[in-house]
């Protein structure tokens, strides 16, 4: 236990060598706590930790910090997301201290979607520091017990540090190096962008294994079930850095009326099955976007239940 960095459930699951399973929950567009609890409840006991997104796609929602704290009070484990778009280093560090004080133990450090995509494109973007520097700052706070300026912290935040990796963005050749940089900066675990192009991901994870990166950091493969051919096409064409191969779109189209969603889940289940066997993959991060209620079924069919006791 003493070598635990945070003592979070996610950390314990990964350190014990279990295949981790994380979920995701977007806070509501309002202060409706009941709605938030309703959204997060299907994830309880079905995943090891739940990512609480931070104004995802630059749309204003309840603070990820608040939603994460509510999740803690519900007896679940959040993976508190923080983006660099909306806060400078002062706000970030104070939120990190606040998060730890509220019982949050996992944190995911992200650049954040540009505000242009969101519902307040007029906003000023901050980007005082970038995601790499954020990872490094959280590590400094935890391991050295210092703020970014070197001043001592009274009771440093002991957080399990996460980061994202998108193997499908360009330039592909540099993606593995950027992953290596994030690990060097202090990432304890990585959650990847939604994977659809398995060939490309195999190539990516093989490089990570060859470079010894998977020995230094836990990599969780990102899975998002495709609910419809329309969603697949939208992701393929409109979401930057997303790679959805044509054969998957065709497979969904061919599934026939009323059976597309089931086909989407089947694709995810096949992926999860392969990830379980894939060298270098330590778990799956299931991003069932606005489909939280389907998580228990997916978890069960993927053979992820019961989640290990740690």
């Amino acid at each position: 236990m003493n070598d635990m960095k945070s003592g979070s459930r996610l950390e314990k699951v990964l350190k014990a060598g279990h295949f981790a399973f994380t979920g995701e929950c977007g806070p509501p567009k309002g202060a409706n706590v009941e709605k938030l609890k309703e959204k997060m409840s299907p994830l309880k006991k079905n995943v090891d930790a739940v990512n609480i997104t931070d104004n995802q796609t630059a749309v204003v929602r309840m603070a990820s910090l608040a939603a994460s704290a509510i999740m803690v009070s519900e007896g679940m484990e959040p993976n508190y997301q923080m983006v660099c778009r909306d806060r400078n280093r002062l706000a970030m560090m104070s939120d990190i201290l606040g998060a730890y004080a509220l019982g949050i133990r996992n944190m995911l450090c992200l650049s954040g979607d540009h505000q242009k995509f969101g519902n307040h494109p007029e906003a000023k973007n901050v980007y005082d520091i970038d995601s790499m520097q954020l990872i490094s700052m959280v590590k400094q706070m935890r391991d050295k017990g210092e703020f970014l300026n070197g001043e001592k912290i009274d009771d440093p935040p002991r957080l399990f540090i996460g980061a994202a990796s998108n193997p499908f963005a360009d330039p592909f050749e540099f993606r593995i190096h950027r992953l290596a940089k994030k690990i060097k900066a202090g990432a304890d675990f990585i959650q990847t962008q939604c994977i659809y192009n398995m060939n490309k991901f195999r190539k990516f994870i093989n490089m990570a294994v060859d470079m010894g990166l998977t020995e230094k950091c836990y990599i969780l493969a990102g899975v998002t079930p495709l609910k419809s051919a329309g969603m697949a096409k939208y992701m393929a064409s409109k979401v930057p850095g997303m790679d959805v191969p044509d054969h998957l779109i065709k497979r969904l189209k061919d599934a026939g009326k009323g059976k597309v969603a089931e086909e989407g889940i089947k694709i995810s289940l096949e992926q999860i099955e392969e990830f379980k066997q894939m060298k270098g993959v330590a778990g799956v991060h299931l991003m069932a976007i606005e489909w939280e209620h389907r998580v228990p079924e997916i978890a069960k069919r993927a053979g992820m239940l019961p989640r290990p006791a740690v």
Partner: protein
Amino acid sequence: MIIADRKPIEEIFEMIKEFDKILIVGCKGCVTVCNVGGAKEVDILAAILKIGRKKKQKPLQIDEKTLERQCDLEYIAQIKDTVNKYDAVLSMACGVGLQFLAEAYPNQKFFPAVNTKFFGGATAHGIWEERCAGCGICIVHYFGGLCPIARCSKSLMNGPCGGSAEGKCEIDKNVACIWDLIVRKKMEHERLDDLLDITPAKDWRSAKDGGPRRRECKELIK
């Protein structure tokens, strides 16, 4: 140089609607080079305003003057005898030029006829792009001579982010992903190792974040 863009003509008409006699002051510096506020553009704007106001039966008297540089006390002194004879003055220089006029002639009203956009240059005839954010401490040499502060939409110092696709930035297909260019250049020169170290958080005090800036050259201050 400083790149500007002329304001929509309706906005300019609105600004000067109550005046009968105005002066338009151009600048032979950056705004002449980027075809927005030199003698030629001053002339065109004067013509448009005169015709527009004539149509509205409210004729406007306009004089024109294009200074060597509007950001230079020596040159703006050239209008000291005439500037207060007008109801208002339209400046076609950048925001610096207009403010130099406003500070030098506190009894006159000055209006901007252009929007000051960025520090950049022409990449093709009629196209100007941003290159510098004026952040105060230049670091472009670490990135193959390309500036991620000015040219990455998120000013990432450890890019590229996950939104880089086919060399373009996620915000707009017309915007190059500068990190794609940085990485490719380093790969071509077999210097990718330069990008493997983490660039630490920047000290923004040298940028606008540290408050309004000032440069002093001791040799010149006597």
